[in-house]
């Protein structure tokens, strides 16, 4: 830990610049905490994600009018809902920076990795929190039977991890471009489709379909790791 600096007064004006921003747990926590605070005061992302994640299954349940859906269709509907709910909320963390014009300061005053992992962590927590509400509602409204709970939870967690990780790199890219919110969806969907497809496959098994879920889970885990590695290696190029 860097020792405390002397008071920032006129007398210290001649001292050199305070240490450069470094990647540390403390910095990651600060980014996370900042997101938490501003979300807590506005609740904009939570509202947006939760509203969509709840409205979509309601709309679906009206349109299928009480028919039992096959596990594959249910899984597909669940993940399409979760993906688009996530897309609405996840870009907020970056769009907000652009709206406040803080992106430039963030580039100057923060270690890139601290920003990346702080935001990824925050987005992961945001996803988990909203799904705690949205997934049970989906299951009840569409009368889904989760026959394999551990598999279901594992698929959700792996899917969320991928969504959160991808939102870091892709969010930073879309925030540096025009039409950020819309662009984020446009560039995130193709990259997240493989994850969505594998997740629906695994979830269908959890809903009672008879396939092999293992290869789907492996594909998800592998894709998560690939996204993680790519984010870690490429984020500096996007950020600086």
């Amino acid at each position, binding site marked *: 830990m860097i020792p405390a600096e002397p008071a920032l007064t006129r007398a210290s004006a001649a001292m050199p610049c305070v240490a450069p921003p470094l990647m540390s747990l403390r910095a990651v926590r600060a980014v996370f905490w900042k997101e938490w605070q501003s979300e807590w005061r506005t609740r904009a992302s939570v509202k947006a994600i939760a509203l969509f994640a709840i409205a979509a299954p309601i709309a679906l349940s009206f349109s299928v009018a009480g028919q039992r859906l096959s596990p594959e269709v249910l899984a597909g509907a669940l993940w399409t809902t979760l993906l688009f709910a996530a897309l609405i909320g996840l870009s907020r963390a970056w769009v907000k920076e652009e709206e406040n014009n803080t992106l430039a300061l963030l580039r100057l005053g923060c270690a890139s990795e601290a920003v990346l992992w702080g935001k990824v962590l925050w987005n992961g927590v945001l996803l988990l929190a909203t799904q705690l509400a949205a997934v049970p509602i989906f299951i009840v409204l569409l009368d889904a039977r989760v026959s394999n709970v551990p598999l279901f939870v594992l698929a959700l967690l792996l899917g969320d991890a991928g969504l959160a990780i991808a939102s870091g790199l892709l969010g930073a890219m879309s925030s*540096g471009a025009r039409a950020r919110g819309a662009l984020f969806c446009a560039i995130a969907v193709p*990259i997240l*489709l493989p994850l969505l*497809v594998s997740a629906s496959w695994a979830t269908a098994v959890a809903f009672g379909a008879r396939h*092999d879920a293992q*290869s789907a889970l492996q594909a998800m885990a*592998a894709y998560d790791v690939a996204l993680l590695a790519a984010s870690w290696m490429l984020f500096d190029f996007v950020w600086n």
Partner: protein
Amino acid sequence: MKIMLLPIITLIWVTAGAVIAWTMPAANQLRATPAAFYHVPMAIAMEIAFVLSALYGIGWLRGRRVESDARSVAYAEVGFAFGIVALITGSVWAKINWNSYWSWDPQQIGIVATLLTYAALFSLRGATEDDLRRRDYWAVYAILGVIAAIFWTFVFRHLTSFSLHPSKTLTGSDPLFKFALRFNIVGFTMLLIWIANLRTRVTMVEERLHDRALQPLQPLASAANEETKEAKDVQWVSN
């Protein structure tokens, strides 16, 4: 003359490939159609194009030379065009064999998803104002695109248990068929490189013209003198 060699060979080769395509017997488990000899090679050339695009993207990130970026873009564009041809010829072939243009076969989904990735890549490029940042984003997204393309090409078909596509088209077929297919793969890969080279040269000429606007203003007389010399040795400094 050296420059003219590739286009000439390519054109002859592709024409020969087209002739062979119209005279071929049926493949393993599949009815023959000339579309086959465009579909498979084009799809493979597309994959090659996207991998090359990502490699040149890495080249840009490492060296920040405008030409790397221009090549990366050229390969992605040509690959995208090839992908669309592969998709259409594939549909034609699918109609002949499976009696439906579109049957949600994993390979069909895969190629559409891959093309979607690259469509997103183009829209990302269009949406970024700063040239240098735009090239960074492009390169990074091209690398992500290859990760997705790898999934669609190699992982996805093992995930789903059904597929109409035969798994041993190349290895299990008639030797003559195999030869024709390989002949066309080589031909279309050369076509790919040729068109991408042309595209790159066009981009570089444009870049050079735009960069000339950044040159210090010179007195008119000396500017006219150096007009010819300047075109040759414009420096590409981008950092």
